[in-house]
């Protein structure tokens, strides 16, 4: 899907005072901002709130926006922080991080081993193209614990670095990594139960450690 204009032109026009250009930018990005807010907050009302705040904020600060970064990244950051602010407010934790100090045990806990292992019957592109499967994808994410969901959304979906994710959520980097791994493994498990081909399910007990000496051609440089 190629856009008629890159954001760059629309941003320049909007900065020069063209409201239509700003509305076109909004139209282009409103769904993904709304989706991000839904994923973080899990309800429509708050997602609408964040979406409106984000674009009003962007409008207000448009003059200060520098074109070195992408408009999309910029508004996604605004939305992420607005959504996290609502989460904090929900808990009455205005000034403190989202976290309680419960992570020490987390890293020590054994990782859940993959249980249902099977190739998926459809490609990610096919799965995101259809309404029913899209809903199943969102449900799997919504069912994650919030602490895992937030790390996954920031790191894997929004492209925050490990450090940025840690700073944004008030976590250590080690903690971000553990949570990300758990989030990925849990999502994989849930999605494979929905999209995996049961006829091609594999057992992880099926094999033991592979032979120490690989067959010809398998050894690396």
């Amino acid at each position, binding site marked *: 899907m190629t856009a008629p204009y890159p954001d760059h032109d629309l941003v320049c026009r909007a900065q020069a005072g063209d409201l239509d250009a700003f*509305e076109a930018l909004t139209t282009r990005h409103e769904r993904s901002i709304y989706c991000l807010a839904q994923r973080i907050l899990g309800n429509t009302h708050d997602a609408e709130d964040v979406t*409106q705040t984000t674009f009003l904020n962007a409008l207000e600060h448009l003059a200060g926006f520098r074109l070195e970064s992408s408009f999309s990244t910029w508004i996604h950051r605004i939305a992420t922080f607005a959504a996290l602010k609502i989460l904090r407010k929900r808990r009455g934790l205005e000034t403190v991080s989202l976290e309680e100090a419960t992570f020490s045990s987390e890293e020590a806990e054994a990782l859940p081993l993959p249980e249902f292992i099977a190739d998926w019957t459809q490609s990610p592109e096919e799965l995101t193209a259809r309404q029913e499967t899209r809903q199943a994808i969102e449900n799997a994410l919504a069912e994650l614990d919030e602490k895992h969901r937030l790390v996954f959304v920031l790191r894997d979906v929004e492209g925050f670095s490990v450090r940025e994710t840690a700073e944004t959520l008030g976590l250590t980097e080690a903690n971000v990594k553990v949570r990300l791994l758990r989030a990925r493994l849990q999502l994989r498990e849930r999605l494979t139960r929905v999209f995996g081909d049961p006829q091609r399910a594999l057992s992880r007990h099926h*094999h033991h450690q592979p032979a120490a000496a690989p067959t010809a051609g398998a050894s690396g440089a």
Partner: protein
Amino acid sequence: MKCTDLLALLNDYVDGAIDPSLCAQFEAHMVGCNPCQVVIDNIRQTITLYQNGAVHELPLPFRQQLHAALREKWKTCHPCPSPAGDPRSSTG
């Protein structure tokens, strides 16, 4: 390298941040371990799924409200540029 060792390195491998010497061992393991291969595949697909994007449609009334709010805000941020001009001259 055992399957459980792979799990611990999975993030670094998927993110392309794995130490090269470990990477070779990781890949050697996968050559002989179909379940691990499939798990790594599934994980990559999982990430792609959520990056593929916008799933939720904006409810139409909200979309209208949003754009109305933007137009309202725009007026306060962009008062008439020329004091002599007709403030309505740019509407349309």
